[in-house]
């Protein structure tokens, strides 16, 4: 309706469409997914296979097929087994996998968190040994950080690693360890020097999950599923060559992992498994059948949820733009997880209002609407805790982004053994 020459001449105007290169790449990805469709697992969100063991094998196969098609580790450097592609290409693969109803890669923790940590702090030998197998899901990885007495206060962890000749001997307990029950390796944060202040006495290792002394016990979550585990470590020997980074540098190494975790969980405007598109489909099915007064309330809940989900999605696009222009993922990713959690709650709430009594009486774990949205509800409290509690994320944003002073941390500079915590 009016001239746009001003915009046309500008560098980098806003554009949500694929560039010609991106469109060509998307077409290649789509063709590859179609070609291998028979070899891939396809699941709707919230759907689960009946036999977990069978599902694990199928998911490992799926990731291997995708890796061989060049669709895993898209933005990793070629020297690390990746495709040397862009983050935009990686995002395109994610979108196309979702479109093809291929579930999250089984090694998502390895790809999102452990792998980047090994890349940043590992030796060339470690790169060689682990990264290509990780991308193919030949080895599945987990992250052994949280402990019964140190969740948000991770640096207060008590698992010890004591040097013994060429090995370290590890004793302690980890908890809330996603995928430990299927993992082949994990990155393990342990205390190697209790005489130093808590952050300075930590060291990171690669742990062979099949080593003697490693015991994994699944934890059942409130929704009934078992994604998390307890891991008991009794005189587990780790060769010194499996150390990641220098002794005493474990906290710095862990920050790499945590930063990647926030980006993986909330950085890109992730819907945390509660998709507004699924809500829209539910609304189209259910809303017309509700009594008029209930329709009004359901419409308001739907509108509120959609707005929050869109705000989160478009904020994710801004972060992806910043990262793809060379910006480092920063504490803003913590804000993304906070907003994503809040949006997910609104989406689930709207789903419940649409379902009414069915949200309570679902007999589930079938793949019907009611069962799925009931599981969604039981998943929500965990979203606000796993991968950084809302409270810790607010501290990170408040201190690193807004520049507000930290709370006094009276144990921060004292030797760990003098803080009343027992390693």
């Amino acid at each position, binding site marked *: 309706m009016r001239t746009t020459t001003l915009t046309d001449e500008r560098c*980098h105007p*806003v554009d949500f469409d694929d560039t010609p290169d991106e469109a060509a790449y998307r077409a290649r990805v789509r063709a590859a997914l179609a070609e291998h469709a028979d070899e891939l697992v396809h699941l709707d969100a919230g759907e689960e296979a009946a036999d977990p063991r069978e599902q694990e094998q199928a998911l490992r196969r799926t990731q291997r097929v995708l890796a061989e098609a060049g669709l895993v580790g898209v933005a990793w450097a070629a020297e690390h087994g990746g495709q040397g592609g862009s983050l935009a290409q990686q995002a395109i693969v994610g979108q196309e996998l979702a479109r093809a109803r291929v579930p999250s890669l089984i090694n998502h923790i390895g790809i999102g968190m452990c792998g980047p940590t090994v890349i940043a702090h590992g030796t060339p030998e470690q790169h060689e040994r682990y990264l290509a197998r990780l991308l193919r899901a030949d080895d599945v990885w987990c992250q052994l950080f949280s402990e019964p007495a140190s969740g948000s206060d991770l640096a207060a962890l008590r698992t010890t690693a004591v040097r013994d000749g060429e090995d370290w001997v590890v004793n302690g307990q980890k908890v809330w360890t996603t995928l430990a029950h299927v993992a082949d390796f994990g990155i393990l944060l342990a205390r190697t020097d209790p005489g130093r202040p808590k952050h300075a006495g930590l060291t990171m290792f690669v742990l062979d999950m099949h080593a003697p002394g490693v015991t994994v016990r699944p934890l059942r979550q409130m929704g009934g599923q078992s994604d998390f585990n307890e891991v008991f470590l009794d005189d587990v020997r780790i060769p010194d060559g499996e150390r990641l980074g220098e002794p005493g540098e474990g906290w710095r190494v862990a920050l790499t992992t945590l930063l990647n975790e926030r980006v993986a969980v909330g950085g890109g405007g992730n819907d945390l498994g509660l998709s507004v598109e699924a809500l829209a489909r539910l609304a189209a099915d259910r809303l017309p059948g509700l009594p008029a007064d209930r329709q009004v309330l359901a419409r308001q809940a739907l509108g*509120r949820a959609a707005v929050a989900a869109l*705000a989160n999605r478009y904020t994710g696009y*801004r972060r992806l733009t910043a990262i793809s222009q060379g910006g480092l993922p920063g504490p803003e990713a913590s804000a993304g997880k906070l907003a994503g959690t809040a949006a997910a709650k609104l989406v689930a709430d709207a789903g419940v209002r649409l379902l009414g009594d069915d949200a309570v009486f679902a007999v589930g774990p079938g793949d019907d609407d009611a069962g799925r949205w009931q599981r969604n509800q039981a998943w929500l409290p965990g979203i606000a805790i796993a991968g950084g509690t809302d409270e810790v994320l607010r501290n990170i944003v408040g201190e690193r982004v*807004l520049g507000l002073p930290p709370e006094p941390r009276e144990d921060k500079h004292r030797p760990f053994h003098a803080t009343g915590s027992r390693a």
Partner: protein
Amino acid sequence: MNFDLDTDQLDAAAGARQFFDGEAGPARARAALEGGPLAPGRPALAGIGFLGITVPEAAGGAGGSVLDLAVVAEQAGAVLAGPSLVTAARAAVLLADQPDLAAALADGSRAFCVVDGDHPALDAVGADTFLALVDGDLVVGGGDVVTGQPMDATRGLGVVTLTGTRVLVPDAAERWARARDVAVVALAAEDLGTAARAVEVGVGYAREREAFGRAIGSYQAVKHALVDAWVGVEQLRSLVWWAAWAADAAPGELPLAAASAGAFAAETLERAAETCIQVHGGTGFTWEHDAHLYWRRAKVDRLLLGDTAEHQDVVAGLVLAGALS
């Protein structure tokens, strides 16, 4: 994909910030409550070209995009400037094929006000040319303005009785709807600026003010309230940019994006302004402090051009009609 301002827009934001810091501010907004003039006022806004950002170059405007305007509107909102860029944005759409009137909008020789029935109209105070939709036609004319006790004097609210109107564009319902969506985006952009400033003021105080031996911003109760307000501001920024971009580049997305931005803006600004007051404690609810001026803007804007519930209902209707599929 690229979702960020371009360098021209970043430059425009910096320039606008400098202009508005010199020409307006909370002290002027407070004075307006006691009968003082609007700041910067129409002549100054016209002089720097901000009333014609989206007016075509042929009519003496800058021929810019709605996103160009939103970037400037954010800076206007930060200092509670008046009159609004909302009316300028809306009138520019309504006057798209009226070069003489569009030129008068851009150069400030006419003072426009857009009227929605008997709702209090934005920028009615001092207006001499009124636009309205009557029986599906866009009309222009004069008007009698009744002002009340203003909650936020910078908004120039008045109830308008149209006088001596003539039809400017027959069957203009579609154009009217687009103009209203663009106005909602501009309002959300101003609210973004106000909310960001309210959070900034609150954060600044929380870093300095001490209680129980340390800065109050170190306490999680205070810190977390400010973080929630800030996260809201950054989420709102995304909706405003998306909606402003859509106005020109993807008009089919504009109704969803504008209603989303409008719904989110009202709640975000309210939370930011209320948090700003709460963090300031006893100082925060004095006449002398600026906090209540941001709060006044929040309390007025949340009812302009549709409240949150109306916007959410629009979003729900569009989602049910397949806007996300």
